[in-house]
């Protein structure tokens, strides 16, 4: 265990074991949207991804609510994490996350009641989204408040972007509309299947296939260039 701090340059702040490598705040944000995208890369938060991406408004609302919880809980975990006894840290993280989920639920019900109704039980269920506990334990507890917030924003944006992508596809094909604006006209017969749960699996599968194809093509191009 002594080796852990051996390669830290002198004069740097105390190194937290297992902490993420230093990075700028912008890099912390960008990472969550792209390379470590919670849904498309890390496969975290699959339950809301399948359950509420039937319309774009629901997808965006779930993404933004999750981002709110990620940022809030990340900030608190980062500030208070070091005072928490090791044995009860996970319990405390969950308590912090549950608090922010409840706040998000209340605020959504007061501001966008229709979306709150549409999300139903999936709002309180954000607390069971392993993305939140994962970021608290793996990142927020080991960095300062600024980086914890940046990570929350990045992961939140990545989550929102993925959910928006999936829900836009599903709403367009399943209802012929986007954000309740009819786009495909009355002659379009909606693919009801797409707004039902199996449509979520199918859309996610196709999105992952697309992403894997892009990554593979890039890799080959890089190989050829080398």
């Amino acid at each position: 265990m002594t080796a852990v701090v051996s390669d830290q340059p002198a004069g740097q702040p105390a190194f937290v074991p297992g902490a993420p490598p230093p990075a700028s705040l912008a890099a912390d944000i960008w990472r969550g949207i792209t390379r470590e995208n919670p849904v498309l890369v890390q496969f975290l938060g699959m339950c809301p991804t399948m359950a509420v991406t039937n319309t774009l408004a629901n997808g965006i609302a779930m993404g933004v609510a999750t981002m709110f919880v990620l940022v809030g809980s990340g900030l608190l975990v980062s500030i208070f994490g070091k005072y928490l006894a090791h044995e009860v840290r996970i319990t405390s993280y969950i308590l912090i996350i549950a608090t922010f989920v409840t706040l998000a639920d209340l605020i959504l019900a007061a501001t966008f009641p229709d979306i709150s109704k549409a999300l139903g039980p999936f709002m309180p269920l954000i607390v069971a989204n392993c993305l939140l506990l994962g970021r608290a334990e793996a990142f927020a507890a080991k960095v300062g408040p600024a980086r914890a917030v940046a990570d929350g924003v990045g992961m939140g944006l990545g989550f929102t972007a993925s959910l928006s992508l999936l829900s836009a596809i599903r709403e367009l094909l399943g209802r012929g509309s986007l954000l309740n604006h009819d786009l495909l006209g009355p002659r379009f017969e909606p693919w009801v299947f797409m707004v039902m749960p199996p449509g979520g699996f199918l859309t996610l599968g196709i999105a992952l296939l697309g992403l894997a194809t892009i990554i593979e093509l890039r890799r080959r191009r890089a190989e050829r260039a080398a």
Partner: protein
Amino acid sequence: MTATHQHGAPAAVTPSKSTPAWRLLVTLALAGAMSGWLVVSVYKVTLPAVQKHAAEQMRAAVYEVLKAPARWDTLYLVNDALTRTAPTGVDLAEVPKAFVGFDAAGNRLGVAITAAEPGFQELVTLMIGFDPASGTLIGFKVLDEKETPGLGDKIERDTAFGGQFAGRVTPLTGVKGRAGAPPSEVQTITGATISSRAVIRIINNAVARWRPLLDAWDREGTK
């Protein structure tokens, strides 16, 4: 072990050998108290907006199912009898209510009530406007449903289905594949027969339940 700067690597913190129990308790108690305080504060701030919205939704629904009444009275169902005075000591949201609508000249247009019964998946909640004297429907509105998207939820979206009910006389019967004939038939939605029948059943049961109550209220006069 060499330093791995990958995050996600196992936390190399040696667990503190024995954190005293009182510290664990204090930590959790403090965290719980803070969390409780936050939740209660935000609840208090957001409650008026939530209640205001619920009231607005109810008002809009009454206005719609009674076809734009000029004003309406609220009657509360307490101990199987209607009363104009709101009961005290109970949550008013839980008390069954009837909204009696009048036109500008003071003539009674009809009564709006809410009713909920299981549909295809979960409870379907309707607001129903009808004339208690004849049992004739004025209109209905789906307040809440979780029916199959694209099929069962047509009970809320399909205007051809919803539009048939005005002027029909309860008890209604659902017919399939042909237009419903007056006075009591309505055509069910293709692909949403169970949900359509649920709507018909809810309306029939609710009107049957409320008509005697409203008759009794009328007989006693609006004392």
